[in-house]
C-alpha cells in the first residue's frame, strides 16, 4: 500500500519535473526576424521590428538562448533569413553530434501575403519555410509567425484554431518534431496596437512569457501555456476592432510528447513578485514610455512572478470605478515585491498607459527640392509673374497627427534674368525672383515602398523684380496662396525617399486690379530620414 502510494507520488513528481529536466537539457537556438516593409501592395508596419527586438531580448534573458545562439535580423531579405537559418542549423547539427538535444525557434514579425512571408521586396514561401523547418537538424523546431494570414501555414495536419488542446502529460520520451504558432488565421489580418506599441499577438505572447501565462505558478512558461494565453488575450483584445477578432493558430507534428519550456522565470535573478495576498485582478506594468510591457491576471491567494527586466515601472490595477496605481523599482539581481499599500486610488483620467501615438510612431525627414513654377495665364507668365525654376529645402513630420498624415514646412527660391516687354515699354532688363514659404498637410496611402499622397498647402509668396535701369522702381508683391498638392513618394533605400509632386495654387493679385490667378508647380524632392 505504502509502496503503491510512493510509486504514484514518484510518477507525479516525474511528470511535473519532466518539462524542467527537458528544458535544462536543451540547447536552444533562436532566429528572430523583424521587417516593417512588405514590398508592393503592402503598407509599412510600425512595430514589427520592435516586436522582434523585444522577443530577442526576452528569449536571451529568460528563454535559455545563449548570446551566441541567438540571431536578430531586422529588415533583412529572405536571402538573409535563409542564410542565418542555415548557420543556426549547422550549429544545431554540431550540437547534436556532440549528443546534445537541441531546439530551434524561429520568430518572424512582418508582412505575409499570398502564401509567402514578405521581407521587404523578397519573399519566402510558407511551404518552403515549413519544409525547411521540418527538415532542420533540431529535436524541436518551433516557428512563431506574427504576420497577416500566417494561419495558412497551419492549414495542414495538426492545425488548431483554438487553444483547447492538451498534451498527454504521461510522456514516456522527449518530444521531437515541429510546432508552428501563427498570430492569425489564414483569412485574417494581424493587427498592431498604438496603445501597446506592438502587435496584439506578440505583446500577449511576450507578456505571457514574462509570467502572465504561468498558470501553474511553477515559475516556468511552457509553449502551450504561452500560446493559450496569447490566444485568449489576442482574441479578446481584437474582438471589438474594426478588422474583427484575430485568432492565432497552433500546429504541431510531434513525435513523442511533452511540453517545452519557453521561459524560465527563475532564470533571471531579478523580477517582481506579486504576493498571494495581493488583491486579484488585472495588473498592468507600464514602462517609462507609457507602454504596457507585461500584464498579469492575478487570482486570489496565489503568488505570481513577473520577470520584468531591471527598471522602474508604473503598476496599474484596473477596478470597476477607479484605478489603483503605483510605482515599483526592479533592481538588478533582486526580486522586488509589489506592496498593495504603495498603490493609490486614481481616476481613469490618470491612466499611466499612453501608447506610442502620437509621438512614439512619428518620424521626420529633411530634404532638398527642385521645381518649376508657372502661371496658367499666358500674359501673366510672360510679363508679370514669370515661369521660373526653384530650389528649396523642406522638413516633413510623418505620422504625428495621424497615421499616414504628413505635415511639412518648406522654403524655396527661384529667379531669372528677363527683359520687360509691355505694350508701351519694352527692353528694360531686370531680375525676377520668387521666395516661397509653405506648409503642407497631406495624407499618404503607402503601398510597399511607394506612397501616393494628396493634401493641402498654404504658401506665402514674395515676388520681386529689380531693374538695372535706376529710373524704374524695384517692385514687390507678397500674398498668401492656398493650394493642393499630389504626388508619389518612393523609398528606394531605408533612409532615402524620392518624391515627385504637383501643386496647384490660387493667387489673388490686387495691385493693378483684383485678379484671381492660378499657377502650377512640378517638382522633385530628395529627403533623408534619420
Amino acid at each position: 500500500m505504502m509502496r503503491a502510494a510512493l510509486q504514484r507520488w514518484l510518477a507525479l513528481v516525474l511528470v511535473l519535473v519532466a518539462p524542467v529536466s527537458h528544458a535544462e537539457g536543451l540547447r536552444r537556438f533562436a532566429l528572430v526576424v523583424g521587417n516593417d516593409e512588405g514590398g508592393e501592395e503592402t503598407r509599412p508596419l510600425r512595430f514589427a521590428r520592435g516586436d522582434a527586438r523585444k522577443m530577442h531580448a526576452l528569449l536571451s534573458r529568460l528563454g535559455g538562448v545563449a548570446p551566441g545562439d541567438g540571431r536578430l535580423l531586422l529588415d533583412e531579405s529572405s536571402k538573409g533569413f535563409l542564410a542565418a537559418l542555415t548557420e543556426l542549423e549547422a550549429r544545431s547539427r554540431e550540437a547534436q553530434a556532440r549528443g546534445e538535444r537541441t531546439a530551434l525557434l524561429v520568430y518572424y514579425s512582418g508582412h505575409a501575403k499570398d502564401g509567402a512571408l514578405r521581407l521587404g521586396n523578397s519573399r519566402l514561401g510558407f511551404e518552403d519555410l515549413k519544409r525547411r523547418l521540418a527538415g532542420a537538424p533540431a529535436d524541436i523546431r518551433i516557428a512563431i509567425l506574427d504576420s497577416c494570414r500566417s494561419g495558412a501555414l497551419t492549414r495542414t495536419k495538426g492545425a488548431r484554431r483554438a487553444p483547447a488542446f492538451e498534451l498527454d502529460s504521461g510522456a514516456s520520451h522527449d518530444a521531437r518534431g515541429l510546432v508552428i504558432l501563427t498570430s492569425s488565421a489564414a483569412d485574417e489580418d494581424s493587427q498592431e496596437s498604438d496603445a501597446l506599441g506592438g502587435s496584439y499577438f506578440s505583446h500577449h505572447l511576450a507578456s505571457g512569457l514574462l509570467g502572465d501565462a504561468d498558470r501553474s505558478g511553477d515559475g516556468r512558461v511552457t509553449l502551450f501555456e504561452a500560446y493559450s494565453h496569447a490566444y485568449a488575450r489576442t482574441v479578446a483584445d481584437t474582438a471589438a476592432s474594426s478588422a474583427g477578432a484575430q485568432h492565432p493558430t497552433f500546429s504541431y507534428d510531434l513525435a513523442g510528447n511533452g511540453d517545452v519550456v519557453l521561459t524560465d522565470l527563475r532564470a533571471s535573478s531579478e523580477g517582481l513578485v506579486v504576493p498571494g495576498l495581493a488583491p486579484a485582478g488585472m495588473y498592468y506594468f507600464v514602462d517609462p514610455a507609457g507602454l504596457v510591457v507585461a500584464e498579469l491576471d492575478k487570482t486570489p491567494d496565489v503568488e505570481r512572478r513577473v520577470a520584468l527586466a531591471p527598471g522602474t515601472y508604473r503598476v496599474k490595477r484596473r477596478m470597476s470605478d477607479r484605478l489603483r496605481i503605483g510605482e515599483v523599482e526592479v533592481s538588478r539581481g533582486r526580486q522586488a515585491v509589489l506592496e498593495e499599500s504603495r498603490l493609490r486610488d486614481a481616476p481613469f483620467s490618470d491612466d499611466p498607459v499612453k501608447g506610442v501615438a502620437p509621438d512614439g510612431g512619428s518620424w521626420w525627414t529633411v530634404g532638398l527640392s527642385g521645381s518649376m513654377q508657372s502661371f496658367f495665364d499666358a500674359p501673366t507668365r510672360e510679363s508679370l509673374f514669370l515661369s521660373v525654376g526653384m530650389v528649396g529645402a523642406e522638413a516633413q513630420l510623418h505620422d504625428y497627427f495621424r497615421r499616414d498624415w504628413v505635415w511639412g514646412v518648406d522654403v524655396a527660391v527661384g529667379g531669372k534674368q528677363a527683359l520687360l516687354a509691355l505694350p508701351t515699354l519694352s527692353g528694360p532688363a531686370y531680375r525676377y525672383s520668387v521666395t516661397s514659404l509653405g506648409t503642407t498637410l497631406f495624407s499618404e496611402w503607402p503601398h510597399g515602398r511607394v506612397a501616393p499622397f494628396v493634401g493641402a498647402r498654404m504658401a506665402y509668396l514674395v515676388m520681386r523684380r529689380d531693374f538695372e535701369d535706376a529710373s524704374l522702381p524695384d517692385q514687390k508683391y507678397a500674398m498668401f496662396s492656398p493650394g493642393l498638392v499630389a504626388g508619389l513618394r518612393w523609398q528606394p533605400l531605408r533612409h532615402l525617399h524620392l518624391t515627385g509632386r504637383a501643386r496647384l495654387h490660387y493667387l489673388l493679385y490686387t495691385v493693378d486690379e483684383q485678379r484671381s490667378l492660378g499657377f502650377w508647380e512640378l517638382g522633385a524632392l530628395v529627403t533623408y530620414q534619420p
Partner: protein
Amino acid sequence: MRYPVLACLCLAMSACGGDFSNDDLEFLNALPQREDLAVKLPGGRQKGAGQRLSPDKGALAVRLGEASQLVGDTDETGQEFNEGVDGLLSFLEAIRQLPPTRREPDRRIWGPYRDNNHPGFDTRFVMTRAGERFDYQLEYRRTNQGEDAWWAFLVGAFQADAGIRKGTGDISLETGRARGKAFTTGMEALDRLEIHYQTQALPTRVELVFDYALPALLPAKYVFREGAGSVVEMTFEIGGTDLVPGGQPEDVALTTRWAPDGRGLGSLEVLRGDITGAKYTECWDRLGRVTFIARSWDFFTPTEGDRTTCPDVSALDP
C-alpha cells in the same frame, strides 16, 4: 486666445500686397527724365571756357587759333537750357519716388498732399492713358477747396513708342496761371515754359520755349538735337548783337553742331540788322580753337583756314 489669433491674422494680412505693377511702369515711363531732355555738349566744358558773343562785344572779330565765341555762347546757352529743363522736371521727380495713391484702369493719382513749399495749397498728380498716349497734370488747389477747384500748373502729354521713354512729348509749365492763383513759383518773368520733345528716332529733338511776360533779351526758343554717332546740335536766336560795324544791331540765328570728340561747326545767320541774310560759319578743334572761318559778306577774304578741319556732322542734315 482669440486676440493672439486676430493679431496673427492682422500681421499676416499686413504682410500682403505690394507695388508689382506693369501699368505703373508704363505710366512712369511716360514721364521724361533729365537725361532725356538735357543738352549734352561734348567735352565737358566749364562755364566760360570760350568767349561769348554779346551785344557789347562790338564785332565778330575772332581769328584762327583763338577761342571760338560760338563755343562759349553755346556752352552758356546749354547751361541755361538745362536749368530750364531742371526747373520743370523738378516737379515730376517727386512723383517718381512715390507709388500711386490710387490705381484705376488707365488712371493713376498721386495725392492729394499738402504742399509744404506752398502753405495753403494741396497738390496732386493725375495721369491718364488712352492707348499709347499718356496725359498728365500737376494740379493745385487751395486747402479745403472742392474737387472743382483743382487747376493745372504743369500739363504734359506723351505718345509712347515701346522703348524706355521713347516717343514724343510736350510739357508746359503754366506760370502765368499760377501767378493768377497767387501761387509763387520763382519764375514770375514767364507766362509759360514749354518743352516739346521727340525721342523715338534719331535725330532726337528737344525744344524749349520761353514765353516771357515782359520783353527780354534772352533767347525765347532753344532746340537741341542729337543724331547718329552722338553728333549734337544746338539752335537758338540772339537778339541785338552788334555783329558788324553799322547803325543797326543784328538779330542772329545760331546753330552749332558738335562731333563726339569736341570738334564743332557753328553757323550764324543774320535775321535782322546791317547785313540781313548774311552767313557766318566757323569750325573749331577739340580745344575750342577756331580752325576755319567763312564770311558771306566779305569779298576779300571770304574764308580763312582749312575747311577740311571741320567735322562731319551731316548726320543731322534733313
